[in-house]
């Protein structure tokens, strides 16, 4: 089951780190970084069922239907 409750241990630190990771990159390089990031996190999650829930939720811009 995809966790959609607050689960990040330090939300502000994570967000800052995410933005920092993209610092000084061109849009193309940022997109490539994001793609690699998605793949890394997907592998960490592993479960196809959970990943499908995340894909669907992302596609619907966070609005479950």
């Amino acid at each position, binding site marked *: 089951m995809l966790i959609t409750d607050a689960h990040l241990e330090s939300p502000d630190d994570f967000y800052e780190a995410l933005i920092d990771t993209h610092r000084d990159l061109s849009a193309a390089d940022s*997109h*490539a970084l994001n*793609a*690699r990031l*998605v*793949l*890394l996190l997907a*592998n960490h999650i592993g479960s196809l069922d959970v990943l499908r829930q995340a894909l669907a939720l992302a596609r619907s811009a966070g609005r479950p239907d």
Partner: protein
Amino acid sequence: MTSMSSSVDYQALEFEYRPSPDQLAAAPAEHPVIVVGAGPVGLALAIDLAQRGVPVLLLDNDHKLSTGSRAICFAKRTLEIFDRLGCCEPMVDKGVSWKLGRVYFGDEEVYRFDLLPEPGHERPAFINLQQYYVEGYLAERAMALPNLEIRWKNNVTGIAQDAGGVTLNVDTPDGPYTLRAGHVAACDGSRSPLRAMMGLESKGRSFRDRFLIADVRIAGVELPCERRFWFDPPFHPGQSVLLHKQADDVWRIDFQLGWDADPDEEKKPENIAPRVRAVLDSIGAGGRAVDIVWASVYTFACLRMERFRHGRVLFAGDAAHGVSPFGARGANSGVQDADNLGWKLALVSCGVAPEALLDSYAHERETAADENILNSTRATDFITPKSEISKLFRDAVLDLSRTLPFARKLVNSGRLSVPATLRDSALNSADADAFAGTMVPGAVAADAPLMRRGEKTWLLRELGADFTLLVFRAGGDSPSPDAWADACPAGIDLSVRCIAPDELADVEGLAAQRYDARTGATYLVRPDQHVAARWRRAPSVADVRAAIERACAIA
């Protein structure tokens, strides 16, 4: 019959048109089964039927084997089927096996993989062999069977069916004649004239891309027998290139060209040569004389007919379905169609099983075609991304695959063809007992090494031509074969094979492991070597009979 030597030039071989007495007959000659198309699928099906005692007529509109190498990867399951058809040995002897695959992204090797097949199988994961050799060995075998007649230069021009059979109009160098058949198998290729004559279509997805195949002989260099796949190499930017080896020291190079390429220009030797030289330069084999043996520019589509059975006409191979070449699922799946259809058509043709058994051919192989199309479409989408974002993810996977093993699992330059497990087939008997592993009803029976009285043998080799009861037994006496006499409907043979120390000894324990079998476990295997039913403890005669009847669609 003596085998032709491997030096036969199968590409130049021409078969003689011979007039048949049927052409002069007052009324159309009747044949139980007519197979149309003497490619790998039609030949395999005709051999299977003939081996099962059905007189077969095989018609081909040409008098030659495949032009060019075409299909070159023949997978383990296909080789096992060719074993059953009595012509695998020369193919394996002639074919090339490779183990090492290298994947490149840009100018860098991102990883290599060892395609070491699981040990304990008689046949390798696959061999590389030009299609004309495979057809040549099949044709030799076919011509050795007394109840199989091949008529070359017999071009079917019309087809009609009624309740009693199928009428074929056939054109020959001596003019037209008419034939009648109980059943017709259309194995006449991707453009299937029979399909068109019946007003049927094969539908699906076309890919807007072109590829160049060049078969080349390279003088004076011993290249390691490896498969190399390049994504976006500097010598062919933005496209993919595949290099692997076939028999007779011929290398297959496959260049992605893009949709805008001009097929006529790309086919010219003077345009192929620099492309080939660029590949060879990149692997340190530059400066060698290169002989272009065969070249072709192709496009492809993933498609299939809605139904593979139309009354008494059965469609098989490329006539029924098409895939992209990535993953070698074209010829391999076609031969598996033939494997599935042969025994069913034999039983229906001689009146042992009802026509409904042919519906199971359609259902089982339509499902398998969907699986093959899915796999080859996925490989195609990875190799030739269809959008910016698709390419972004593809490149991200390749980037990560340099260092992270998980990403290598996502790299898809074609998944090795494996047979479909026919899980949803109506011919299966549902498990009453719990088993672990992959040998579920509908799966192809796995091979395993066995010993009989000190001689090495293989599980698949020991299976009977019809149904086989495979009994695992730790010791004690085997039941007499007579004990199973009542398990068989009339006209069907049941072979009983005991995996037991004093019969077929499972000395390495691989059979028991692959079948999750302890003593008493019993498997019923279909004539095409798929599992039909299984039991933890010895089944009753009535259990086995019910399972055989179900597997033959006998109500």
